């Protein structure tokens, strides 16, 4: 996997000071950096304080910054986001952790009706720079309530930015951008790749790796940003454009590699704003497009991608755009790998797409 020139616009820290980090460590590092730089940044959520988070993303913050800045909260997601909004209005930059993205729904009224609209409805007088982090996605035998990918819902809500990184390097740079952004950001973290890239279930020919061996597991120790709204080209190619984000970037990359198809793989990173220029440029070149996500299919973010692509690239398209997604069922405990979009399913879609001449 290599990064294309399209990331050259990023305000990366070029210092040699890099360390191998997992996604968890990179996220943790982003929190340490921003909290060190600005006393207005605090983390809050269930078990994020003393314990350091059930996925360890907030480890060490309590020891370093105390109980007030690594703030354990009652278990009421709506209350947590509401409090964060009030704090944001009063000059702080709260970084909220939702323990699982599946538990974001009790907070959705505060997110949709309040957080997303505050700046607009107040004529620009008030805003709340809240970042909401949420581990998402399947592949950890979490069943239907520890595996969901609800990102699509938030992309339908104007006033929110929605981001999902696929690797430690991006995770840190995007999270710092999110925290320092004055707009609210929904920051989804695919938990399956917290501790290593994942290429799909073994039976489907994939497997897990370690971030140690991955170039994007080399992460600057200091402060850097990756702008929200810019896709990364994971692999240049000429036959077909693959649009993915989160864990599926890795599954797609491996599917492309093993299939020998010369696909161009874009990691969207930011779903809203979407880097439609990068997307359109690629599809106009390849003439074919496959869209991939773990979330349920109907009205998922993939639908928006299809709509945008067919609108901007209609005359270049040489085959229908395919969606490879989770099924329209809850995520089943026993059938996790039959649910999870596999390399096989991706390759099939690529081949169907290429079959048209």
């Amino acid at each position: 996997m290599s990064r294309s020139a399209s990331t050259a616009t990023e305000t990366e820290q070029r210092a040699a000071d890099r360390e191998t980090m997992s996604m968890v460590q990179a996220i943790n590092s982003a929190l340490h950096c921003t909290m060190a730089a600005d006393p207005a940044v605090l983390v809050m959520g269930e078990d994020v304080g003393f314990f350091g988070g059930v996925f360890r993303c907030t480890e060490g913050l309590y020891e370093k910054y105390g109980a007030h800045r690594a703030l354990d909260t009652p278990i009421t997601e709506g209350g947590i986001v509401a409090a964060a909004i009030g704090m944001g209005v009063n000059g702080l930059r709260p970084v909220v952790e939702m323990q699982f993205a599946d538990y974001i729904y009790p907070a959705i009224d505060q997110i949709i009706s309040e957080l997303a609209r505050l700046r607009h409805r107040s004529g620009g007088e008030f805003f709340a720079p809240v970042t909401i982090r949420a581990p998402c996605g399947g592949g950890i035998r979490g069943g239907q309530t520890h595996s969901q990918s609800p990102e699509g819902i938030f992309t339908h809500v104007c006033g929110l930015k929605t981001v999902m990184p696929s690797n430690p390097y991006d995770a840190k740079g995007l999270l710092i951008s999110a925290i320092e952004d004055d707009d609210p950001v929904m920051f989804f973290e695919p938990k399956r790749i917290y501790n290593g890239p994942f290429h799909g279930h073994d039976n489907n020919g994939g497997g897990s790796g370690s971030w140690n061996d991955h170039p994007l597991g080399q992460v600057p120790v200091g402060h850097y940003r990756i702008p929200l709204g810019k896709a990364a080209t994971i692999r240049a190619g000429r036959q077909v454009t693959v649009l993915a984000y989160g864990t599926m970037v890795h599954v797609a990359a491996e599917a492309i590699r093993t299939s020998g198809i010369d696909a161009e793989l874009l990691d969207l990173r930011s779903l809203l704003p979407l880097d439609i220029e990068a997307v359109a440029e690629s599809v106009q070149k390849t003439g074919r497009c496959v869209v991939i996500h773990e979330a349920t299919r109907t009205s998922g973010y993939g639908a928006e991608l299809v709509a945008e692509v067919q609108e901007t690239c209609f005359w270049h398209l040489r085959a229908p755009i395919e969606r490879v997604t989770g099924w329209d069922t809850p995520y089943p405990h026993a059938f996790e790998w039959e649910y999870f979009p596999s390399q096989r399913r991706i390759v099939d879609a690529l081949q169907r797409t290429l079959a048209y001449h």
Partner: protein
Amino acid sequence: MPKTGGNQPAGAHSHPGASGAWVSKLHVPTGSSRPGEVPDFSALHLVSDGALFRPEPDCEVRDAEPLARGLVRVLDDEGVAGGPWLPELSDEHLLQGLRHMVQVRAYDERMFRMQRQGQLSFYIKSTGEEAVAVAQGMALDSGDMLFPAYRQQGLLFVRGRDVVDMMCHCISNARDNCKGRQMPVFYTWKDGNFFSISGNLATQFSQAVGWAMASAYKGEDHIAATWVGDGSTAEADVHNAMLFAATYRAPVILNIVNNQWAISTPQSFAAGGTTFAARALGYNIPGIRVDGNDFLAVHAVTDWAVQRARQGFGPTVIELVTYRVAGHSTSDNPDAYRAHNESDAWPLGDPVTRLKDYLIGRELWSEPQQQALEAELKEAVSRDWKQALSHGSLEDGPHWPVATMFDDVFQHMPAHLLRQRQQLEEEE
């Protein structure tokens, strides 16, 4: 002893249905009156028993407990002021309070009429409950942050908001600081530390607690105050607010304006058979129930809560017992769901009249002065209205440029909104 299924409206008790097989044992609450009935407020327990003491603002919650079920009053039914809650307020302060209340009423009357004439799309009056916002606003410092519901316009008058600006907001004209985006009455005023009012009930309640937490986090002395209606207390945000306020001892005042009605639904559907102030006790927060039409009592109780919060002893819940004299908004006719003139039977009187009479009794004021004041403020509101209209009307404008609807969705406009704005402009 509670009785199952007691207290039912005639005919509603038995549960017919085609089968006829079921007889419901469910209890469904009722209210003070329905059309044609004689209003009955006796279930409200409007007596001061247990509330005739004033603990110190740093007291333990249990020491204030009776205040949650009693009723703090200063002005009695005869208009005599007294008791432990009698606040020390200067004559000027009291006269200013009267003036604000009269001004709110004049403003409400005018805006309501303008809505009826089609100049506003919507309006909400605070008639009968002006003492709540005015006395509470006056008990707070200007650096304290207000998170109101939609019926505390009195706060804006206390804080000195330009009335023309308020009106310009209500008619979404070119001078509306909300840039034409909000329905009338959903004011925003950052410079006055007045938060953006939401159309979604109760969301501000828990946000106010977060604001107060941030104040404490920064080591500042500012407190937050927030308001919610009796019906709105049912929303989860009110629970979240109380829980967070208690957990972190946030410097916040949580006000519940119990004006007896939530559109057509009696407060009994939200109260669960007890007082709203009592809800606080289960969160280890003092709850104080106060005569919301008694300017002096409202001021005194708010002072107490301000001191408690400012000194670091945490939140207070105040239930303000009052009455919504007008319809819910310009969209409803209350005669459809409560006895005509139910307000005449309201036992706690009118807040303006009560303060006025008290001031007259103390010879600080007179009926002619009152009439002059009312005339003066009515006149002022008329002038302001004309001026507001000079900046544009709802139907004919001028408004903000249409394209500004794309501003402020984000701090910086992303490409997809730039494209949409361009499409709109091409259409024009």
